[in-house]
């Protein structure tokens, strides 16, 4: 099994979720993060003074998948999440040794 972790622009979440659902992905875990990267943040204004914002809201999606589905899913996310502009985000993949479904105790791919 692998874990696919992707950082995307927040407003892309809905579309990525639907793409994944269409691929038959039945589960994922989402969280709110803030990114720092090439996309540089903007100036804001507060009571007559400007200041820089460094961290930009992003959404992190975590998916654990059987090895054989990884390539396809990564590609699907990439296509759906891309806008072609800086800050579109990243996809990281790494190994998962074990998965357990808490409800039933099933393990491995069965648990996903």
């Amino acid at each position, binding site marked *: 099994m692998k874990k696919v972790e992707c950082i995307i*622009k927040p407003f892309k979440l809905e579309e990525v979720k639907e793409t994944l659902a269409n691929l038959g992905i039945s589960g994922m875990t989402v969280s709110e993060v803030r990114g720092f990267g090439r996309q540089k943040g903007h100036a804001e204004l507060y*009571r007559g003074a400007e200041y820089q*914002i460094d961290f930009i*809201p992003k959404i992190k999606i975590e998916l654990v998948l059987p090895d054989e589905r990884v390539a396809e899913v990564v590609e699907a996310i990439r296509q759906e999440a891309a806008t072609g502009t800086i800050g579109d985000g990243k996809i990281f993949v790494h190994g998962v040794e074990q998965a357990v479904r808490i409800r039933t105790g099933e393990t491995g791919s069965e648990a996903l």
Partner: protein
Amino acid sequence: MAAAGLVLALPGFGLAEEVAINAAEVQENLNFVWTLIAAFMVFIMQAGFSMVEAGFTRAKNACNILMKNMMDFSVGALGFWALGFGLMFGVSNGFFGTTDFFFSGASGEGEAWNYAFWMFQTVFAATAATIISGAVAERTKFSAYLVYSVFVSAIVYPISGSWAWGGLFNGSGWLENLGFIDFAGSTVVHSVGGWLALAGAIVVGPRLGKYDKGGKVKPIPGHSIPLAGLGVFLLWFGWYGFNAGSTTTGDTSIALIAVTTTLAAAAGAIVAMGATWFKYGKSDVGMTLNGALAGLVGITAGCENVSPLSAVIIGAIAGVLVLYSVLFFDKIKVDDPVGAISVHGVCGAWGTLAAGLFDTAGFSLQVVGVQLLGIVVYFAWAFGAGLILFKLIDVLMGMRVSKEEEMAGLDFCEHGASAYPDFQTVRLGTVFTPGESAGK
């Protein structure tokens, strides 16, 4: 509920004619009703100040702000009862009043009016103290706050207040005798609060992180603009009591005051908004809110002796003044989280001058001269007394919390509390909202 003896006044009982009440007595009753309702409206300004100050500071200090506002009114009311009222409105020794402490003069015919007048003046005194709390927010020890709160409401504010307003009751003030115009307190209340705030902000020093290593200003945005906005509306509402209620008489003169108050506030808000839009390409919410307050402070002195048109001009100028004043104090490293010094101190001075310049009685150099004298004298008094008071407190008990406490927030350190336990409130620098335009 109405005791039996009041039945005369209960309508619908057919008894009304039995006891003859004359028009002057009814007018007196009306004056009480009006003055007290106005006082209650000014009371709600405490809620307004709380919301503005809490909204313009960080979530980790929100409980502390509420505590301070709750306490400066409470402590101020007791202090003004014990000492302040007498110093301000007792029979004067030329510099301050020396009678009427603890309602000692409240007896006989004038007793009821003594209470009504005290009520109205107490909410004013509390306003002066509250103004400071915004300027020294997010880093001042709560115990130090309590101490200076007592001193301000019970001593500093009343003494100088007696100079211009003592004659409204048993006192008599040297400045009012010169003809000083400050109808509802641009100087007597707001500037005094503002200059004390200036002294406080200087003594306590800027918040950690307000200036970077190079000395550049790093704004620290307030944690809830909706609460700040609500606060400004509540203040504006209360201000009608503040200005129009200062007649302490329910008569037709209150109408013009309501009008000038409205127009000046509106002009202040519009001009402050326009100025930021012009300067930064975007209209700044916080400064617009400050602009409305600036207009209100500006019109307070002259609300009953300037024309509606003059009110618009006075408010508009206050709206620009507040922006540049905020930038100025930021630059000279006086850190005022809510803009209290600019709104109340600077625009209060401007309003006092304007009450002379735009006097509907006609322009007179002498009047303007007295106004300038008043502005200077009050600055000297409030800023001077403030510096001494805050320095003394700093030496004796410390004005400021430790660095660690400031980082952790006053809510936790001073009150063991969290303002928003159900929310994560970590500030990673301010953030964008989702859906930010791609790659901009």
